[in-house]
């Protein structure tokens, strides 16, 4: 019994070593990182990396928050009513629509980026928050619709029909019955939308020029690409960019696993 736990801890330690190494490097002076033998513990560490990261990437972190929250809002506002219709109201062509939503998820992001670049060029949406929110939503809306629909199918019909009998319209039923009972599913869809938009690099690098603002993922990419020896600054930025994922794992672990598994196997 004990032996299994020890072995399990060992496995986790090996697999999470890269993350430890990131934190370790972020706390050491740049000079120390370029010595031939790495220091395995940040003894006598420094917060210089974080100061640099905050100074150069602080605005980018803020921009990423804006885009991620915008994506959550747009995704839920569009996806929730659609899921309600697909799950609870009979729509002719509903199954076809579900199929289309599954298929569009298979489209490689680079294709969307390429196409959206020319479309956005004409619409003046290059270098805009709105453009990035709309682009990120191409990934999150199909996902959110399918996830919410799978949940809303299980909402008992008696509940919504009772509301209808009481004289509530479809909209009232949606707002006062469906949305409250689907709270957990909405949280899950929102969390995943946030994480996706926060982590997005492809749209951020293709649909912005970096002239008016930059997202944190692009910031890290440029930082790394500068061939700089400033690895403690890079790793400090990486730690800051990893915080939402870590927070989520601690605070909303249940939702994360639910979203992940409901995604792949179950209905």
């Amino acid at each position, binding site marked *: 019994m004990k032996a299994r736990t020890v072995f399990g801890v060992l496995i986790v330690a090996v697999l999470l070593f890269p993350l430890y190494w990131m934190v370790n490097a972020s706390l050491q002076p740049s000079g120390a990182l370029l010595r031939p033998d*790495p220091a395995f513990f940040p003894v006598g560490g420094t917060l210089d990396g974080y100061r640099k990261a905050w100074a150069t990437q602080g605005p980018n972190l803020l921009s990423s928050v804006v885009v991620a929250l915008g994506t959550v809002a747009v995704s839920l506002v569009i996806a929730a009513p659609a899921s309600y219709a697909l799950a609870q109201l009979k729509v002719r062509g509903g199954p076809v629509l579900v199929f*289309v939503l599954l298929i569009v998820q298979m489209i490689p992001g*680079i294709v969307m980026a390429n196409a959206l670049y020319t479309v956005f060029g004409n619409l003046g949406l290059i270098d805009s928050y709105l453009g990035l929110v709309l682009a990120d939503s191409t990934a999150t809306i199909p996902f959110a619709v399918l996830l919410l629909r799978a949940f809303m199918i299980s909402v008992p019909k008696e509940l919504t029909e009772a509301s209808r009998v009481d004289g509530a319209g479809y909209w009232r039923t949606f707002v006062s019955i469906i949305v409250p009972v689907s709270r957990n599913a909405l949280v899950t869809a929102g969390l995943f939308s946030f994480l996706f938009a926060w982590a997005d690099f492809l749209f951020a690098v293709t649909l912005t020029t970096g002239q008016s603002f930059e997202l944190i993922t692009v910031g890290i990419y440029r930082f790394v690409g500068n061939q700089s020896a400033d690895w403690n600054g890079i790793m400090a930025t990486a730690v800051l960019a990893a915080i939402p994922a870590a927070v989520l794992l601690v605070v909303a672990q249940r939702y994360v696993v639910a979203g992940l598994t409901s995604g792949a196997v179950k209905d």
Partner: protein
Amino acid sequence: MTLVAPAVTAPPRTGRKPRRDNRFAAWLFLLPALGYLVVFFGYPLAANIAMSTQDYTVKSFYTGEAPFVGLANYAAVFGNPLFSAAVLNTVLFTAGSLLFQFGIGLALAVFFSGRFLGSALLRSLLLLPWLLPLVVSGAVWRWMFDQDHGVLNAALRLVGLDAVPWLSSTSWALPAVVLTNIWIGIPFNLVILHGGLRAIPASLYEAAALDGAGSWQRFRHITWPLLRPVTGIVLMLGLVYTIKVFDVIMVVTGGGPANATQTLTTWSYRLSFGDFAFGQGAAVGNVLILVATVFGLLYLRSAKATLAEAAA
């Protein structure tokens, strides 16, 4: 992070025919999503197909002129020696990633499905690499691959081996990005396969144990066959998502050195946004769509079969 396509199909519902107002209301609820699909998928994809038949350059953005060139972009792409290299890299990257992600993920799923102190907590910690932005993971691994100061080479030197020029050698760069991507993909395989394992009735294992079956025999004759449908789904989804991996390669190697890690995805990016040959970038993109859709349809078929089996 990659979003995962939720599967599939509602259970068949029976009941009265919908009333007319019901249908009308349903369409109102669907309208925003439909509009979004048409504007942000339909139109761009059509534009992408059109673009692949045009000589689309930077100038086209100012003049609005992009002459029709038929299939010339496809001819140029297929005739480019980089095409076969990119296809080979994509196949090696995908196959290598899937094989090890799955193998390691399965081993871990079996290990962590045993109940022991802390198993649930440890398992959830292993999710972290999957939740991180890929750019973060890429940057960390790039630092670990550093030839002179990276921890991987320090470890090799410690056991008396030579340092490896991970990112500057054309033969090591692809294994390096594959290694990174394996690390990223393990949690996904672990969680899904773990779910599949939990669905196998414990009574089967108890019966097998009574018959004196060892742990390998139990795995071989119970776990593996009963896990097969889930296996199919995991591999198919992994395939669809690995073919289009972009961030990891861009951050770790940028497709280099000397195109040694250039895949169809990164090449499409370079054609469009590096060489500004948008027509050719679109052509490569359409090839990718074709491949992804074929495997996507296969995935849907296997997912449906799984659900049918579960219902039976």
